[in-house]
C-alpha cells in the first residue's frame, strides 16, 4: 500500500516542484526589484530567461502547479497515515545513519506540511501566517526538495522491490472479505503489522477513496485554470465564478477599491509618463490615437487560475521608441498603487520586444474597468499576472 501511494507521489511531487521552481524563473528575479524582500543567494541560479512563447506558458505552469498540488494532498495524507507506525519504532535510533535519516524525515514531513499548508492558504487569500508568502514558500520548497531527494534515493530500491512482487498489486483487487494482512516474505518490511486488526476496509476501497478525493480536488484546480465552461466545475475553488457579466466580467487579482488609489488621479488629468533617453507625457486620448493592436492573451495568477481575454492597446516597443530607445530595452512599469509588493515590475528585453506585449487600454471591445487597471495596464504573453501592472503611472525604459 505504502509502495503504491509512494509511486503515485513519485510521479506527482516532481511536477509540483519543477513547476514551482519555474514559476520563480517567470518572475525574472534578477531584473530590477522583482525579487521582492529577498537577497539572491546560491539557490538563485537561472539557466534561461523566461520565454514569451507560447503565451499560455505561465497559465499552464501555474495550473499544473496548483492543480497537481491539490490532487496530491489526499495521497500525501494517506501516505503519512500508512507510515505512521514508523514514528513510534523501537529502538528509536539504531545507528548514526538511522539517526540522520530520521532527522531528514523531520525536514521532509515539516517541509511537506509547510509547503502544502502555505500554498493552500495563499490560493484562498488567507494570510493568517505572519510572514511574506512568496519567499517562505520558495525557500521552504528547497528544504522540502532536498529532504525529498534524499528520501527517494533511500527508498527507491525498496519501492522497486515492493512493486516487483505480485503482492503489491494483487491484494489491491480483493474485496473486504478477502482482505488479508501482508505476508512478511519475500519482501520484509517494517510496515507490515505483526498483530493486525481485522480489516475494516479493503485496499481497493481505500485506494478508490483516495483517488476520488484526488479527483474532486483536481476538478477545483483544473476548472479555474482552464476556465471557459469548465470553470463551473471548480465549485469550491477561489476563482470558480465570474465576478459579473459583461466584457469586464472576468477574474480579478486585486480590486480597485483595495488599492487606496484616488479615482481623481485616473480621470481626464491622468498622463502616462514615459522615461527613456527623453521624457514624454501622453494623455489617454493621445495613446488611443497611436496604432492599436489586439491580441488574445491570458491573465494567469500565481494562485493557479487564469482567464484569456481580448486586449487592445499600444505596443510596448512602440512606446520604447517614443521614449527615445532603439534596440533592446528593459521596462519597469510603476503603478499609481503604492506600498504594495507588486506596485511595480520589470520586464526583460525579450518581453518588451514581443509584438503582443501591450500597454492595454481596452478589453473585449470596451474600456478597461477600474478593477482591470483603467486607464491603462501592461499585458504580455506568458507574463505572471502580478507583473501585468495595472493603473500604470510611469513606464521607464532602459537600454540593455
Amino acid at each position: 500500500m505504502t509502495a503504491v501511494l509512494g509511486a503515485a507521489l513519485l510521479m506527482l511531487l516532481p511536477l509540483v516542484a519543477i513547476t514551482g521552481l519555474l514559476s520563480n524563473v517567470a518572475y525574472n528575479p534578477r531584473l530590477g526589484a522583482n525579487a521582492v524582500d529577498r537577497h539572491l543567494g546560491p539557490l538563485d541560479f537561472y539557466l534561461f530567461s523566461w520565454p514569451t512563447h507560447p503565451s499560455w506558458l505561465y497559465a499552464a505552469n501555474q495550473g499544473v502547479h496548483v492543480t497537481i498540488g491539490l490532487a496530491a494532498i489526499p495521497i500525501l495524507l494517506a501516505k503519512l497515515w500508512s507510515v505512521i507506525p514508523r514514528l513510534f519504532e523501537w529502538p528509536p535510533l539504531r545507528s548514526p545513519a538511522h539517526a540522520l535519516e530520521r532527522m531528514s524525515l523531520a525536514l521532509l514531513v515539516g517541509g511537506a506540511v509547510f509547503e502544502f499548508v502555505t500554498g493552500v492558504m495563499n490560493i484562498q487569500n488567507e494570510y493568517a501566517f505572519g510572514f511574506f508568502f512568496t519567499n517562505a514558500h520558495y525557500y521552504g520548497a528547497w528544504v522540502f526538495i532536498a529532504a525529498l531527494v534524499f528520501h527517494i534515493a533511500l527508498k527507491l530500491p525498496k519501492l522497486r522491490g515492493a512493486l516487483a512482487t505480485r503482492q503489491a498489486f494483487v491484494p489491491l483487487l480483493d474485496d473486504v472479505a478477502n482482505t488479508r494482512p501482508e505476508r512478511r516474505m519475500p519482501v520484509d518490511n517494517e510496515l507490515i503489522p505483526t498483530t493486525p486488526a481485522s480489516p475494516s476496509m479493503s485496499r481497493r476501497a481505500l485506494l478508490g477513496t483516495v483517488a476520488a478525493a484526488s479527483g474532486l480536488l483536481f476538478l477545483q484546480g483544473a476548472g479555474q485554470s482552464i476556465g471557459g465552461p469548465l470553470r463551473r466545475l471548480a465549485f469550491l475553488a477561489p476563482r470558480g465564478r465570474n465576478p459579473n457579466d459583461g466584457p469586464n466580467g472576468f477574474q480579478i487579482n486585486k480590486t480597485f477599491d483595495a488599492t487606496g488609489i484616488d479615482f481623481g488621479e485616473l480621470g481626464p488629468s491622468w498622463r502616462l509618463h514615459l522615461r527613456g533617453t527623453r521624457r514624454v507625457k501622453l494623455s489617454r486620448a493621445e495613446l488611443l490615437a497611436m496604432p492599436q493592436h489586439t491580441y488574445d492573451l491570458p491573465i494567469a495568477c500565481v494562485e493557479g487560475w487564469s482567464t484569456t481575454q481580448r486586449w487592445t492597446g499600444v505596443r510596448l516597443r512602440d512606446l520604447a521608441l517614443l521614449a527615445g530607445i532603439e534596440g533592446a530595452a528593459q521596462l519597469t512599469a510603476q503603478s499609481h498603487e503604492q506600498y504594495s509588493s507588486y506596485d511595480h515590475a520589470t520586464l526583460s528585453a525579450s518581453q518588451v520586444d514581443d509584438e503582443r506585449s501591450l500597454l492595454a487600454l481596452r478589453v473585449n471591445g470596451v474600456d478597461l474597468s477600474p478593477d482591470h487597471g483603467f486607464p491603462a495596464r501592461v499585458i504580455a504573453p506568458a507574463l505572471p499576472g502580478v507583473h501585468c501592472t495595472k493603473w500604470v503611472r510611469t513606464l521607464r525604459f532602459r537600454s540593455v
Partner: protein
Amino acid sequence: MDRFRRRYGAGPLHLIAFLTSLLVSGLAVRRFFDSDGSETVQILVWFGLGIVVADLVFLPLYSFVDRVLSRRPADGPGTARFARVRAHVRVPLILSGLLLLVFAPLILRRSPGDFGDASSLSPDPFLHRWLIVTAALFALSAASYLVRVALDRRRGSGRS
C-alpha cells in the same frame, strides 16, 4: 570500509547524500533570516508546528473519530451489515472532510476580507456549495448501499 559501515550503519554514499541534502536545506533556511526577526520566528514556528500537528494531533484525531464510529456490535448476524454500513458512511465522510480541510479558509469565511479585496467575489456561496456536495456524497453513498443490498437479495433468492 567495513569498520565505517559497522559504526555508521550504512555506506559512505549515504553520509554524502545526507550532507548534500542538509547543505541545500541550510542554504534555504539561511535565506529565512534575511527578513526581519519576527518573520523568521514565525516561519520556524509554522515549520515545527507542521510536524507536530500532522503526526501528533491530526492523525490521532481522525483515528479517534474512526474508532468511535467503528464501535461495533458483538459478533453476530449483524456484523457483516454493520461493516458495510460503516464503509458507506466512512467514504463520504472522508471526502467531505477533506474538501473542508483544504477549503476551510473560504468555506468558514464570514466576511469578504482579503478574499473580497482580491477578487470582488462574495465568500458566501462556499459554505452552501460544500453543504450541497456533502449531502450529494452521502446520498450517492446511500443509493449505492441500497443497490448492493438489493443485488445481494436477488442473488440470495435466486440461489434458494
